[in-house]
Structure formats: structure tokens, C-alpha cells
């Protein structure tokens, strides 16, 4: 599979640092599941995180911290490993977790003209994620968004005025981008779309979102 549209360095670094809102992290994790280039680029960003940690100034641990941890090594049972999903032809494993099953479990809601969407539940409300189902040949309905929108193709393909996006490709659209993507003829198109939600931002989320807005 050849992927032509990738995560940019801003998103990769924020995902490596763990500062992306959950919905954006879901899009990043899903793209990386399909894209070895970005998987390798993520590893390089994480190596930078490791170097930052290693040069970090030391904060004195409490007296007895080591003993406390040693005492927990046998006592605390290891957390059970996350269950591995069987490989799904459309939904990579991070999405299977959010959908709670395969495509049959998706709770689609009609948006008109045969287009359907399913909002995925994220606990952190800084951004929202949904699956879009666009019949072959159909235009994606106008969906205004503030800030940034990521659209990751899972099945089929869509085109806008200049580019084509197929499975694994991710489109990064800013606020100013006017585009009218159209699903290609042949196969119905399924995408993961992530937008910053029009919510009242509180706490740490807006601060984390700022770099995303500024791209």
C-alpha cells in the first residue's frame, strides 16, 4: 500500500510527547497503524523524548522510595496486556477499540444523501472523532469546522480539487481551507474525521490544542 499523505512533524511530535487531544491521537495512531514511514518518524520523535528525559535535572526521590517500589514488584500484579484484535480489513486496531467491534457494530446516523456518520466517544472533549460513510460518487456534505480537521481514509477514496486520498492517506485541513471532497466512483468511502469540537475549553486542553491551531 502506497500512502501519499502523511502526518506532519507538528502532529508527530505532539503525539510522541503525549500532548495531542485524544481524538487527534486516535487519528495519529490509526494512520501510523497503516503507515510505516510515520511509524518510523514517531520512533525518532520518541527517541528525542528519551534524550530529553535523560538530560532532565534530577528531583530527589523520597527516602524509602526504592524500598517502596521493590516491595511492589511482587505484590502488584502486572496489568493484563491489552487484548489483541484480529486484523480487520477496514478498521485498524485503535479504531476497533473505539467502535467496540467491527463495522457491523458502528451506530450510523443518516446525514442525508446517503451519507452517514457515527460519533466516536472520547473522554477528553477537546476534539471530536467520527466515522463518515460516503456513497461512491457522492460529495461530502459541507461541514464547517474551526481550527484543524484531519480526515483519514479507511476504505475507498476521495478527491478534492487537486488531490486524491486513498486508504491510509490523511488530509490535514486548516480553518481557511475551502474544499469539497467527493468520494470516487466504484467503492463507498469510509473515513475517520477528527475536528476540534466547538466546546468551551477548560483546563489543560486548550493549551494542548494551541499548537494544533497554529499550524
Amino acid at each position: 500500500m502506497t500512502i501519499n499523505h502523511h502526518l506532519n512533524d507538528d502532529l508527530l511530535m505532539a503525539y510522541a510527547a503525549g500532548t495531542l487531544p485524544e481524538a487527534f491521537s486516535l487519528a495519529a495512531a490509526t494512520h501510523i497503524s497503516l503507515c510505516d514511514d510515520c511509524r518510523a518518524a514517531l520512533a525518532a520523535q520518541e527517541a528525542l523524548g528519551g534524550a530529553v528525559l535523560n538530560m532532565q535535572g534530577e528531583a530527589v526521590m523520597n527516602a524509602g522510595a526504592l524500598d517502596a517500589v521493590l516491595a511492589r514488584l511482587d505484590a502488584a500484579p502486572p496489568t493484563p496486556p491489552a487484548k489483541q484484535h484480529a486484523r480487520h480489513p477496514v478498521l485498524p486496531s485503535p479504531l476497533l477499540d473505539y467502535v467496540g467491534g467491527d463495522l457491523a457494530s458502528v451506530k450510523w446516523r443518516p446525514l442525508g444523501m446517503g451519507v452517514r456518520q457515527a460519533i466516536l466517544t472520547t473522554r477528553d472533549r477537546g476534539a471530536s472523532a467520527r466515522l463518515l460513510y460516503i456513497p461512491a460518487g457522492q460529495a461530502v456534505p459541507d461541514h464547517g469546522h474551526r481550527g484543524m480537521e484531519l480526515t483519514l481514509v479507511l476504505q475507498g477514496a476521495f478527491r478534492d480539487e487537486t488531490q486524491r486520498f486513498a486508504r491510509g492517506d490523511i488530509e490535514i485541513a486548516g480553518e481557511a481551507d475551502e474544499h469539497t471532497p467527493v468520494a470516487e466512483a466504484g467503492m463507498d468511502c469510509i473515513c475517520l474525521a477528527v475536528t476540534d469540537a466547538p466546546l468551551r475549553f477548560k483546563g489543560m486542553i486548550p493549551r494542548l490544542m494551541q499548537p494544533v491551531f497554529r499550524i
Partner: protein
Amino acid sequence: MMAVRDGGDRAAFAQLFHHFAPRVKGFLMKSGSDGALAEELAQDVMTTVWHKSAQFDPARASVATWIFTIARNRRIDHFRRTRRPEPEALDWGEDSEPDQADIYEAAQEARLLAAALETLPEAQRALIQSAFFGDLSHGEIAAQTGLPLGTIKSRIRLALERLRQTLK
């Protein structure tokens, strides 16, 4: 780390603890935790290092990088009360021993990266650090200029290609 992973060696674990626990605590305090919380989370992180040591692969990441990802995930779990969506795991194969040349190269790259980070101008280094503390500011990507991240990406990209070949 290998003695911890392969031998369950507690003395080796104590050495890892002395090196990394204070750094993890310092890192978490820079990320906005107070001292007591950072202490608790740093102890959790070191406990996880022990329990997940079987997953450590020196051909793919340095010890510092691997512990960084554990600390990062613990921070997300705690502050967001939600898990970080992770990419689909790759099956690197249980018994495929990592290539010694890969391990050597990975260690070499980690040293080069650390040295490059040390020699960056202070302002540039501070930008990168704050990006990882969760205190991003504009231009942090430009701040990475001059760091040998491309070589790390290329080597891992090659390893992934080899893996895909064997999976075919």
C-alpha cells in the same frame, strides 16, 4: 536493563531506579505535577518498568526512550483519565533475536542524539524540552533543526521493511 529483563535482577533494577526515578520525577514536575504527585507517578513508572521489562527491545529504542514512553503514558492516564490510543502492535516475532548490529546502531544513534541536543543553543533546547513537557510553543519543529533524527527514522524504516518481508 537487560539484566532486569532477562534475569529479574533486583540489584540491576536498583541501579536503573537511581538513574531514572529522579529524572522521571523531575520531568513530571516540569509537566505540571506537584512534588507529591510526581513522586507517586515516578514510583508507578519504575514499577511498570519492572513488570513490562519483557517488552523492552534494545534494537528499537534506548532505555531512556522506552522509559520516556512509559512516563508519558502514565501522565496521560493520570491527567486525562483515559488511555492513549496506540498504533496497532507489530508482531516482531517472539523468538527472532534482535540483530546485534541493530542494537549497536540504536545505541550509537541515541548517543549522537544526546550529544547533539547538548550542543544546541540554550533557547533552542529549551523549546524542545517544553514541547515534551506539554508546554508547546510555536516553532518547536524548527527547533529540531540540526538533530540527527533522520538517521533514526531511516534505520527503523529499514527494520520495518525487513519485518514486512518476513511476514509476507
